[in-house]
């Protein structure tokens, strides 16, 4: 069997006395799309932030093979910089040679005409698109998405699923967390996060099969 691109072992995290994550185990394999659902406050964002390295768990370890892409729920941009300046800044961060992938994403998500617009003047939907583009522009092997399609219009929502299917086809591992997962048939595995633990609600039997779009 192929080895996982992300392996989280025994992740626990408490806020004060409240135990949010209790010995969570998670593996993401190449070519899979995995979803995690849970109530508000169940610890989904905490888990994702630990996987991304923003937050240190009380115990446990996260191993990631290759590059990581993380799209936070709150749009994290610099208001003074234009779309193109964001891309140049993050190209330097990822140490990528060019902006080929980013340009392709901008075209696919349909916001090419805003490339010279400062973030402060962008609409909520375009900001969300730029947020997603930044997390994908270095073609990561593991992609973590926190409520990724909030604020998307219908057209962009469909484009998003095209992108997700494309990543899956190219052997990337994608994890989506949301309080509501629509289109459950698009996921290979779906977990439910409750009482600090992950429970499988949809099995990973067809993990490496091509996506149905």
């Amino acid at each position, binding site marked *: 069997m*192929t080895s996982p*691109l992300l392996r989280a072992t025994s992740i626990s995290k408490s806020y004060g006395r409240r135990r949010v994550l209790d010995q969570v185990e998670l593996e993401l394999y*190449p*070519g899979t799309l995995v979803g995690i659902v849970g109530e508000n406050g169940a610890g989904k964002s905490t888990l994702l932030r630990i996987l*991304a*390295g*923003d*937050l*240190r768990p009380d115990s446990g370890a*996260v*191993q*990631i*093979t*290759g*590059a*990581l892409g*993380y799209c*936070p729920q*709150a749009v*994290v*941009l*610099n*208001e*003074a*910089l234009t779309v193109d*300046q964001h891309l*140049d*800044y*993050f*190209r*330097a*961060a*990822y*140490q990528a040679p060019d902006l080929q992938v980013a340009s392709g994403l901008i075209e696919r998500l349909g916001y090419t005409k805003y490339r010279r617009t*400062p973030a402060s003047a962008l609409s909520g939907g375009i900001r969300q698109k730029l947020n997603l583009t*930044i997390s994908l522009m*270095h073609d990561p*092997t593991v992609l973590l998405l926190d409520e990724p399609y909030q604020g998307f219009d219908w057209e962009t929502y469909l484009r998003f699923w095209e992108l997700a299917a494309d990543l*899956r*086809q*190219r*052997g*990337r591992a994608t994890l989506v967390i949301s309080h509501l997962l629509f289109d459950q048939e698009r996921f290979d595995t779906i977990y439910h996060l409750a009482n600090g633990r992950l429970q499988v609600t949809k099995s990973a039997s067809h993990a*490496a099969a091509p996506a149905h779009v």
Partner: protein
Amino acid sequence: MFDQLRAALRYTLLEIARNRLAAGLLIIFVPLWYYLLGALIGNAPVAFKYGLSNRFLQVDGHNLTLITTGLNTVTLIMAFLFFASTRGSAAFDQRLVRSGYRQATLMLAKASALIVASAVIATYALGVMMVAWRPRGLFLIWLSFFLAGLIYGALGLLLGALLRSELAGFFIIIMVSLFDTLFQNPLDNPAANQDALKALPSYAPTQVGVAGGFTSLFPGRELLLSLAWFAVLIALGLAIFWLRTRSWNASARRSAARVAPVAPAA
């Protein structure tokens, strides 16, 4: 490394240049403050305790006020700029670090941007001051504005990394800058010239400015004291910035990426 430094320096400076509050303060507040305080204070001589020679100088009260007014405006604007920039970009900086930016590079870029901004604002404040007064030691007065800008820019950065409340930050900056710079002027504060004032951050830059405006002495000790203030404040600010932006598994991930940089195909 060089590419990251280039981008970080460029965009930090760009962000600062687009700060409308600071631009407004530069265009309106600096000339207005010079004009108001300059008009209020006459040219009568005033005794100023000059630390380098430890004696009292008789200086022109109006011109001394121009120096302390310049210091007040430079310190306020620099502190505002770096408080707003550091606080506003906290989450963004963390995202950059998580995406592979070296923290040391971001820190170096912030410190360099602070030096550049202070040099530009000091030059502007000196230029506006020269409409009213052309002192002999122009360079030392510029240096006094520049050093005060460094110290207060670093204070702004420290507060921006430390505080979550915008109001608290602005309040602290206004109070500290106003009292610190006014206390140094015996016309505004009858208790000026006392040794206790030496412990305030604008003491040394004020002395450098007075040396330039009214003496032919070189204030080496005050220059070093100013740089020490800057060094301590910037070190504290960057240390907190480092703690706030670090990614707990970034180094583990970097080494993993080195081992297996190419993703397995489906």
